[in-house]
């Protein structure tokens, strides 16, 4: 070790903070200049840490499960009454659905309809929050030989969640639909009016750019649109809610505050990716 005199050591110590602050600005420039390097560093770190996160996940899930259980016990009576009403209503819908299904089958037979192949999907567990203060994203833990690729569409058990934007060897990052950089082409199911669903970092994304004359109405169902070749048409997204101030928002079907396991669908579409996903979408493996 180099021995320094006390004054020079003090001078070095006093200098290190300004020098490192300058280095911090340098890191900012580096982050802007070589986004690919930064992305690779992030995913390497996430790959290394995802087993730890997966292990920590167990007790966290147990505690959350316990809390949810306690909440359910507390609201048992009210929940029971609500479910009885729901059941009554759903029974009527079931009758309608069965009749429609039979009618549909009959019509398909007459048209010799070729059904769409049901898309393949794989499931992955959410292991970490990958959003930070100003973004909304989650990190998925995937096995070492996973086939997760950029641009795949993530859904939870109820509806659309987001898209895969970064992929490491053991983990993948999903940008949520609520993120401020998220733009999802959607269609309102009743009026077939196209619109853009724009994330705000809040819990409800905003609807924008609908065609003149067909404003979305409160309670309309919103599904994805196949515009721009980024999503297949018809994935369930949410319901339109018009706020008191007149803003048109979408209440998502997916429960983004309690994501647990996501389904990743590979529709083989390579449309636009969000701006921070610098690399091109990887081509689908040949089969």
């Amino acid at each position: 070790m180099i021995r320094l005199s006390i004054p020079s050591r003090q001078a070095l110590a006093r200098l290190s903070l300004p020098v490192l602050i300058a280095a911090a600005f340098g890191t900012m420039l580096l982050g802007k200049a070589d986004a690919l390097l930064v992305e690779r560093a992030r995913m390497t770190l996430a790959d290394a840490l995802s087993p730890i996160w997966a292990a920590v996940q167990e007790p966290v899930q147990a505690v959350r499960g316990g809390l949810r259980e306690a909440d359910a016990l507390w609201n048992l009576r009210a929940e029971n009454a609500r479910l009885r009403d729901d059941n009554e209503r759903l029974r009527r819908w079931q009758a309608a659905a069965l009749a429609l299904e039979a009618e549909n089958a009959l019509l398909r037979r007459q048209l010799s309809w070729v059904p769409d192949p049901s898309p393949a999907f794989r499931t992955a567990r959410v292991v970490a929050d990958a959003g930070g203060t100003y973004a909304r994203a989650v990190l998925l833990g995937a096995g070492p030989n996973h086939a997760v690729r950029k641009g795949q569409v993530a859904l939870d058990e109820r509806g659309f969640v987001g898209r895969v934007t970064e992929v490491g060897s053991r983990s993948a990052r999903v940008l949520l639909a609520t993120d401020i950089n998220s733009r999802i082409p959607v269609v309102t199911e009743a009026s077939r009016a196209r619109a853009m669903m724009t994330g705000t970092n809040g819990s409800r994304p905003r609807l924008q750019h609908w065609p003149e004359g067909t404003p979305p109405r409160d309670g309309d169902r919103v599904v994805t649109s196949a515009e721009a070749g980024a999503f297949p048409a018809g994935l369930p997204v949410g319901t339109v809610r018009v706020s008191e101030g007149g803003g048109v928002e979408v209440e998502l079907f997916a429960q983004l505050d309690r994501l647990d396991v996501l389904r990743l669908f590979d529709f083989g579409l390579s449309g636009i990716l969000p701006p921070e996903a610098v690399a091109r979408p990887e081509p689908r493996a040949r089969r």
Partner: protein
Amino acid sequence: MARKGRPQPPMGTLRRLDAGARAAFPALGTALLLVLAAVPVGVPGLVAALALPPVFFWSVFRPAAMSPPVVFGLGLLQDLLSFAPLGVGILTLLLVHGAALRMRPWLVRQGFPVVWLCFCAVAVGASAVGFVLTGLLDWHMPSRVPALLQAGLAAGAYPALGWTLGRIHMVMTRAEEGP
């Protein structure tokens, strides 16, 4: 001195290991806290909020173990973990460290409420710096709510974290002074 104590025992491997562990604890403990803060519990932005209290605490009470290079490393870890624009966390943590060093001579003699109040002011400043830098690097102004939330989270987490770290600091000081 009238009283003669026992001569200091020579620096053995175990004692050196002990001292090394004490010197490394603030950095490693904070890094572990950051990694654990990334586990999703329904509160976004927890990593950035939980990085502030330990950096401030150790910069005030044990600056030798929380040196500028260590703070730089923790900031880098925070930026990589939270997928924030690279450099924002580094700069905010370094500024917090600098502010804590400035206030240190006066602050170490104060009681807990005064230290907490000072930390609240520093946390608000750090969130503001993070807000402005994120806006500059992303070329659009983010919403103000997450920045306020971050400052609030950090200020709210300080009492619990500060109490725990204070206990650890006391134990460490006692161990250093010897029997």
